[in-house]
């Protein structure tokens, strides 16, 4: 990916103060935009001030943030994961097949529900491992390696379900998408927990340092003794696990699983959130908080425009412009 960017020519003269202002703008620009959006809505959109509206916005954005968190880790190593939407479809197709067929183990009340969550997520993680093996053992470019499951993964889900929509009603299982402890949607709690853990991992663990080292300069990281292959496999597994979780949340909300639709286009939503959040696609830097902010910005712009009666199509065009603008403003943020 690095060669897609023009290599900077001679070092430009740097002036301390403007440079610092720009650095502040780059670091907090996305956050400032988000705050402005929230303020604007608080003042001009009466319905925004209700808890229901907050919950709605957060519910809609939760799956994107969960997937985008894994995507941030992958992108931080200099890779990309196009397969997340298909992995969501696979996990979403698998879960109803497990809990609605009265299989042994899965018909035991609590254990069955837990297994119906964990097994599909684990399967998605295994597919993530497949991606990671292609990238490390076979040294295939990430965009191609994950393109394979993007193409084939949804097909696996479609073949497994013969393309039929699986409708179900399983309150225990659907807790993952419908429960509201303390009035907060459970997927929002999951989202916040995952973001918090990932932010801590990136900031305070050796694994996080290794991820950034690989994205910054892979040969150097290898020479410095970083277990490059193992770390890379792990980020693809994490991306797969999180995609699987997102797939389960989607089907739990809908009470049905449609392998043709679950997670469709999610890879691009997630990448857009990561890019708007300020993580460069070249790797070596990552901001999990930024990804959360990026996803929220996209969500709020969309919902603000729609609530003002702007057609969905126009909202899409505006979001396209925002993505370009955000990446342009933050593009100097490289190591």
């Amino acid at each position, binding site marked *: *990916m690095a*060669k*897609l*960017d*023009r*290599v900077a020519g001679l070092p430009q003269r740097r002036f301390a103060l403007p440079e610092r202002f720009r650095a502040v703008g780059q670091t907090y620009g996305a956050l400032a935009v988000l705050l402005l959006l929230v303020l604007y809505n608080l003042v001009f959109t009466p319905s925004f001030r209700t808890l229901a509206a907050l919950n709605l916005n957060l519910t809609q954005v939760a799956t994107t943030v969960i997937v985008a968190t894994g995507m941030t880790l992958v992108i931080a190593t200099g890779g*990309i994961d*196009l397969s997340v939407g298909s992995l969501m479809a696979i996990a979403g197709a698998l879960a109803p097949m497990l809990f609605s067929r009265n299989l042994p183990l899965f018909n035991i009340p609590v254990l069955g529900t837990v297994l119906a969550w964990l097994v599909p997520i684990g399967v998605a993680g295994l597919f993530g491992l497949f991606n990671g093996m*292609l990238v490390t053992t*076979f*040294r*295939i*470019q990430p*965009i*191609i*390696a994950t*393109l*394979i*499951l*993007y*193409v*084939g*993964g*949804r*097909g*696996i889900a*479609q*073949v497994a379900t*013969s*393309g039929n929509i699986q409708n179900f009603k399983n309150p225990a299982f659907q807790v993952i998408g419908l429960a509201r402890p303390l009035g907060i949607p459970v997927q929002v709690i999951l989202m916040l927990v995952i973001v918090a853990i990932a932010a801590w991992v990136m900031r305070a663990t050796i694994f996080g340092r290794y991820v950034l080292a690989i994205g910054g300069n892979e040969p150097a990281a290898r020479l410095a003794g970083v277990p490059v292959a193992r770390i890379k496999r792990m980020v693809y597994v994490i991306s797969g696990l999180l995609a699987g979780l997102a797939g389960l949340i989607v089907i739990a909300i809908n009470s049905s699983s449609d392998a043709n639709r679950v997670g*469709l*286009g999610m890879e*691009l939503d997630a*990448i*857009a959130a990561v*890019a708007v959040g300020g993580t460069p*696609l*070249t790797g070596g830097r990552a901001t999990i908080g930024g990804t959360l902010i990026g996803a929220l910005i996209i969500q709020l712009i969309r919902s603000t425009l729609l609530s003002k009666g702007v*057609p*969905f*199509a*126009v*909202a*899409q*065009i505006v*979001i*396209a*412009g925002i*993505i*370009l603008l955000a*990446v*342009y403003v933050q*593009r100097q943020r490289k190591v």
Partner: protein
Amino acid sequence: MATIPSSTAGSATPAAPEARIGSMLQRQGALIALVVLTCIGALRYNGFISTYNIVELLRYNAMFGLIALGMTFVIMTGGIDLSVGAVAALASVIAALLSPYGATVAVGAAVGTGLLIGLFNGWVITRFNIAPFITTLAMLLGARGAALLLAKNAAVSVDTAGGYVEIGLNGVLGIPFPVIMLLVAYVLGSIVLNYTRFGRHVLAIGGNEDAARLMGLPVDRIKLGVYALSGGLAALAGAILAALTYTGIPTEGLGWELTAIAAVVVGGTLLTGGIGSVGTTFVGVLLLGLIINMLSFENLSAYWQSVIRGVFLLLVVVLQNQLSGKRKAAA
């Protein structure tokens, strides 16, 4: 070193025989697979080698072929164009809306829009130095939004009296117009890549952009050119879509960009840029199309298509990678 075009890469150094076989397999592997599959199909299915089946195969794949051709040029410069599916959808809507004014106006406006979108992509990429992946991702959203807006969120019927649908129905000597466009585009594309300054510059930029810039090649202009080409060809594919389906469909073309990239990769063009050929992309498109064609003879559910395509992509990519690794070691 990476600027050496594929046609000479194998013979640059006298290599051991097995390395030469490996290099030939890597470059012509897709062609070999195509021939093998065609032979299997000919032996196994009645009517596989019929004019009807061949023409239908080409007609159906004309759209993907045109998009993959533009994508080949973009990828050879080291870039990528994710907006092609959305541009095709937008073009199909424009063509359908303008179909009452005749085929020339409709196709011209559609392709013109595609060219402009491609130019805009190229301008953003070169002027603002934003990665092609992000730029064209944003354009994917933007063009899809524009298509929905123009079509008022519904499919637009083509005016059948305006002569527009003739594009899909008629042809010369029994060859439908979409197939003629496909073949002409590939012949022209091959000539442009191999015999013009533009084509050489494309490969030079993909091989080493900084070196190309220092040598004084007009890097930005060439990039504008390849993105415009990609946008224009995607729009032409959209115009064909409107003619074949009698509708402009703002929601069509989902994932076409990745299918086109898959065809380019199966053909053997490296995503890192600098190496590639137009002919092998054609083979890649035919190969992916042929797989679907054979599945329809097998009466397998349509859902197997994507699984088998995925498995196929996996085999080709792993094989190519092993072979090119060997080649590098031998050189």
